[in-house]
């Protein structure tokens, strides 16, 4: 704790203004509690500032150069998770410091308002950058000038490597801002929900058309209230809700594509619509497997070749086979390409359909360098 020091609040205003804030921090000296139980932490590239309503004139500061290691102390039912900051020994003594007994080499921060992992990520990034060490570099230079000039391939490679690293750190910084945007968007979604509820209640005053129009605006943004792990109490419930959401969203799309859609297509569409809270492929797959159990209008099917599709319950195999047979009779022979063009389905699905029918002995194949063509199975019908 002796590595923290006090500074006048007025001096810190500029640094704090543009940095992210974490509220509800409790400080621990080693494992013991301190009196600092309701701090707001601000993280800059070289310091952590702690401010509190109980101490309006002074801020507590920790220089990041003293932080040797950042760890996460995973909590359990009785204690919450905490961030452990291991600190190096103090070597400057001219600031006033908080009085503590039994100094230990690490402090802990508890986050009663959440965002622990975010803080951990940010502080680790700041430590990596170590921007307090490159004081000599002028702020106008954006690229890191290489200290050794090497000619030849090695020098070029090194410069390329540095460029790549610069790019990636710039991208990371850019996405930092995205997080703020996402937080703001959450508020917007809530606001939109409130508005739509209000509209529902006042149905007499606002006409049906306007309600519909407003709702369609919301829907055109995609899914307005995506199911997230946070919103569900347990994993199972999460998958059930997800399955229902996916089924309702894809119902129209699958009917348009002939009752069958490859799982990769469906995954892309759903994620595009969700916009922000994207699904991982495993979550999507697990949710799809629940669909049959929940008796939703769409089910997940796996063909023998391993292709996964989402299929409308109403479009059974029998109907699809009949359609293809009819086409075959008209054309005498069929390729997968022709089937896909006729029924507006993807080539993969058309192939699956044909293989399926071949396995049932309805058609036979003619395999040449020119391609794979299917004929009606005259072998079985003639004997």
């Amino acid at each position, binding site marked *: 704790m002796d590595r923290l020091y006090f500074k006048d609040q007025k001096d810190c205003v500029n640094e704090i203004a543009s940095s992210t804030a974490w509220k509800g921090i409790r400080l621990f000296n080693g494992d013991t509690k301190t009196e600092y139980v309701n701090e707001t932490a601000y993280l800059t590239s070289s310091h952590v500032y702690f401010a509190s309503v109980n101490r309006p004139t002074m801020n507590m500061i920790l220089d990041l150069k003293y932080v040797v290691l950042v760890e996460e102390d995973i909590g359990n039912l009785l204690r919450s998770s905490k961030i452990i900051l291991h600190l190096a020994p103090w070597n400057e003594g001219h600031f006033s410091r908080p009085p503590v007994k039994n100094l230990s080499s690490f402090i802990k921060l508890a986050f009663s308002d959440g965002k622990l992992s975010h803080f951990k990520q940010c502080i680790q990034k700041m430590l990596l950058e170590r921007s307090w060490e490159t004081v000599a570099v002028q702020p106008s230079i954006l690229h890191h000038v290489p200290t050794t000039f090497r000619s030849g391939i090695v020098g070029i490679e090194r410069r390329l490597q540095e460029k790549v690293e610069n790019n990636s750190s710039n991208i990371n910084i850019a996405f930092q801002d995205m997080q703020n945007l996402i937080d703001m968007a959450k508020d917007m979604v809530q606001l939109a929900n409130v508005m739509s509820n209000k509209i529902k209640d006042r149905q007499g005053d606002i006409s049906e058309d306007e309600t519909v129009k407003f709702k369609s605006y919301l829907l055109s943004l995609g899914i307005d209230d995506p199911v997230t792990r946070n919103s569900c109490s347990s994993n199972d419930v999460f998958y059930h809700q997800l399955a229902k959401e996916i089924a309702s969203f894809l119902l129209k799309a699958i009917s348009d594509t002939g009752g069958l859609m490859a799982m990769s297509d469906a995954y892309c569409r759903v994620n595009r619509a969700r916009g922000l809270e994207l699904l991982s492929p495993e979550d999507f797959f697990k949710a799809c497997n629940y669909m049959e159990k929940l008796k939703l209008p769409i089910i997940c099917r796996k063909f023998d070749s391993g292709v996964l599709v989402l299929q409308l319950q109403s479009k059974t195999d029998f109907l699809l086979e009949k359609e293809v047979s009819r086409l075959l009779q008209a054309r005498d022979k069929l390729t997968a390409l022709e089937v896909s063009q006729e029924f507006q389905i993807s080539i993969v699905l058309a192939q699956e359909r044909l293989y399926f029918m*071949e*396995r049932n*002995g309805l058609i*036979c*194949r*003619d*395999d*040449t360098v020119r391609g794979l*063509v299917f*004929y009606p*199975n*005259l*072998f*079985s019908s*003639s*004997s």
Partner: protein
Amino acid sequence: MEFSWPWEYDFPPFFTLQPNLDTLRKQLEAWRKLVLDYCRHNKIFVLDVQESISLFQNKAIDRQLSTEGINRVLESLLEYNQIEWCDKAKKQCLVYWKNPQEWGNLIYRYASDKGMTNTVCTFYELTAGDDVQNEEFAGMDQSLLVKALKTLEATNKAEIIMFGGNEGVKFF
């Protein structure tokens, strides 16, 4: 008389090995029939695999059976005892559009019709003699003839005899 090719010969999928097992069975059946009919029509007793490629292709529809396909067909014929390999290298085989037993009976009937029982006749007479030109077994391959006669030996209707460098058979 021109050999009449079966309808399957003009059906492109006939030249592709079918993955569906039931369809494959019917396909191989058709191929076996085609091979036997072709050999019967053209009096082919010994089939050379390399030279018979024309049997397994149809230039009119630009299709031919792959080597794997040909092997499958030959395997199937072997399974049904409709061919027998002449050599271990599997380059030539005897085609049994009649099996040795049927041949044996046919030859015996010919021999007894011509009153050749209790006489000896050479193999040459049986296959290339003037009298036999109208018979089905004219021009028969020697090894097949021996097999046929062996079946007669088993039923004591004939006996193969070696005399003076020639091979002959006595009918009883």
